[in-house]
């Protein structure tokens, strides 16, 4: 019953983003539902490929902004996420890794499920089906867990990410370069992580309340010692999707060394393309860095972490100045040619880094870091707290978000970065 309500709610909300969103998602869902059923019994490869291409077409089409502008249609909401979800389902059914879903309502819920349609995580049918379609019971432990997780997501989003976005937008809108570009890249690393993982926290939190288990999407990415490790810890849903459905089918590492490197680069190009056409170069650079393997690795763990962090930060420039291919490169170059650090430190307030903002940022990033590094311990402690203390923790977080969060009139309110992909 609750499942049907969830489905209805999802459909209603999706429809508010335009009827075409609903039509595109429905077409995807229905086409894969029926072919899934058929493919389970009849292994028909051409049909599988046809249906994959059919579902990829909208994704490809809407990646080309000039085409979209030309035809003047709205991009369906959640396109990047549900497309990959349905493809993983149909491939898994074909490979007998999972059984096809018999109940169309269940399958629709899998595709339409509101919490993850906006920013993922990209879900696999074989993972979520275990908990998604069972009868829901109210469970106080799960509810507390979910609510705390949601409030933590809000904390990351509104105290950290939105605050940093104020700084970055004042840097980009004034075309500041050099030291400012470096600062923007470093801060953006933190912003994107807080924003994206904060959103995922909310999705996982809501799902917790309904007793639906989703996979984690991040595993403390910025303590990676190499770029390769980074991709095992960052946006795990996308990386593992690409690994399972692109990299391994291409031959993975069971081929010649050169072929393997090409496979890696192709995989990252696809990743770049999934984000949008202006991100292809970003994908290429990551691909190359993964291919170089341990080239930048030293014996010192902390130096490795630092180097990896700086490399990923510099490459986020493709996300910051995402309007063209050249701009990010220009900006990275300017870091090495414009030494305006003194101007930067003298004019911190001009880029919204007031003393108050700096203090709040440092404290909240500190909390984030401590939590991330000691996650298991802290989670254990929290789950053992009494209901009164859990409620208090929840209330304190909510009040902190309302009071110190950056949102509403007077601030540049921004949507989740990863909901636009």
């Amino acid at each position, binding site marked *: 019953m609750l499942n049907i309500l969830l489905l209805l709610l999802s459909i209603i909300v999706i429809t508010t983003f335009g009827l075409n969103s609903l039509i595109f998602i429905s077409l995807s869902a229905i086409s894969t539902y029926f072919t899934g059923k058929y493919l389970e019994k009849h292994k028909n490869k051409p049909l599988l490929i046809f249906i994959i291409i059919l579902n990829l077409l909208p994704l490809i089409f809407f990646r080309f902004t000039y085409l979209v502008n030309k035809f003047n249609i709205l991009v369906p909401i959640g396109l990047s996420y549900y497309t990959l979800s349905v493809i993983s389902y149909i491939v898994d059914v074909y490979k007998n890794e999972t059984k096809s879903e018999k109940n169309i309502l269940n399958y629709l819920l899998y595709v339409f499920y509101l919490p993850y349609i906006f920013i993922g995580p990209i879900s696999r049918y074989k993972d979520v089906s275990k908990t998604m379609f069972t009868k829901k019971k109210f469970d106080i432990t799960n509810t507390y867990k979910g609510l705390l997780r949601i409030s933590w997501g809000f904390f990351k989003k509104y105290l950290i990410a939105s605050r940093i976005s104020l700084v970055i937008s004042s840097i980009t809108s004034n075309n500041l370069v050099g030291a400012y570009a470096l600062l923007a890249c470093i801060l953006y690393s933190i912003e994107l992580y807080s924003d994206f993982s904060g959103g995922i926290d909310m999705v996982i939190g809501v799902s917790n309340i309904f007793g639906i288990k989703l996979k984690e999407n991040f595993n403390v990415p910025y303590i990676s010692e190499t770029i390769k490790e980074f991709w095992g810890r960052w946006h795990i849903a996308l990386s593992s999707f690409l690994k399972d459905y692109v990299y391994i089918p291409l031959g993975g590492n069971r081929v010649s060394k050169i072929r393997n490197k090409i496979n890696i680069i192709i995989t990252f190009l696809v990743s770049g393309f999934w984000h949008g056409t202006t991100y292809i170069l970003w994908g290429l650079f990551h691909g190359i860095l993964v291919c170089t393997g341990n080239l930048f690795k030293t014996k010192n763990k902390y130096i490795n972490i630092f180097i990896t962090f700086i490399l990923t930060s510099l490459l986020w420039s493709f996300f910051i100045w995402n309007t063209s291919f050249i701009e990010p490169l220009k900006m990275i170059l300017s870091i090495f040619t414009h030494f305006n650090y003194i101007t930067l430190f003298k004019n911190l307030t001009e880029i919204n880094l*007031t003393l*108050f903002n700096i203090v709040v940022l440092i404290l909240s990033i500190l909390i984030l870091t401590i939590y991330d590094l000691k996650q298991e311990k802290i989670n254990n402690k929290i789950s053992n707290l009494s*209901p*009164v203390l859990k*409620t*208090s923790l929840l*209330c*304190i977080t*909510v*009040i902190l978000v*309302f*009071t*110190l*969060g950056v*949102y*509403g*009139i*007077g*601030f540049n309110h921004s949507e989740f970065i990863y909901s636009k992909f």
Partner: protein
Amino acid sequence: MKYLKVILTLTFFTIIFILLNILLKPKYMTDLVEGSMTNAFYKEDMVHDVIFIGDCEVYANFSPLEMYETSGITSYVRGNSQQLIWQSYYLLKETLKYETPEVVVFNVNSMRYSKPVSEAYNRLMIDNMKWSKEKIDLINASKTEEENFLSYVLPIMRYHSRITELTKEDFEYLFRTKKTTYNGFLINKNIKPYTSFPKERRLPTYEFQDIDYEYLDKIRTLLEEKGIRLVLIKAPSLYPYWYDEYETQIKEYASTYNIDYYNLKSIADSIGIDYETDTYDGGLHLNYYGAKKLSKYFGELLKKNYNLTDYRSDAKISEIYNKKLIEYKKALESD
């Protein structure tokens, strides 16, 4: 027992949250006192024969206490900065829940606006209004695209950035207010003579929009139902320009519905208003000296034309008003 504890915890934090909301909302007591006008009315302990509604052209130009002193009539100004016509309507509706005056005077200047102008003005007017159906309707009619309703329920959503700007005022007036206006009149004794205004511009249209007529009709019928006289005025002001086309339309409306309309702007000279001394901003609004002259003139006019009672001989009311007058005079001297 377990649940009781949780409920107590929740209550505790809710109280903290409410306190934070009160703390962060501007107090409008020493700075931007224009934000304290709507709620000042709730402290008023008596009824009035005349209610003024309109924008800054009423709260700066008409002083009820001057009118009492010279003609004995009782009145109150329910005006706010940039009060648009739908705002005037809902504020009037709220006022009529508290009292039924003989005459309502509406300043027609806001007929020229057909869209919410600015979020900041909405806040000044609405922040301190008591919750009622009128307030809900008022918010819905007034809010600009960027605003949301919830931020009026939870002011923290609008004002949380003030956390770094809190002053002594915010703590001093956390739970109390002080007198900022006198029967809705805001004293301003500054003098800034008229110099010049930009040239009169051509407008895309001179016709009042449907929405303005809609609310003017609403005001008219609301008052008709209650048997209250509606009087239209155009207050003296040199800018923004009051176009002839505007004047014609108002006159037409007034004659269609048999309403009295006084253009006080056109007779400002004969009232004795001198834009060299009687304005605090070069001619947009009158200062105290201008308001004194205008109030004397208009108070007498109201009393004569609408047979209003002279309360100066009424023991009970004159006692209250004499007290008010002493406070008012004191404020005038200290200003």
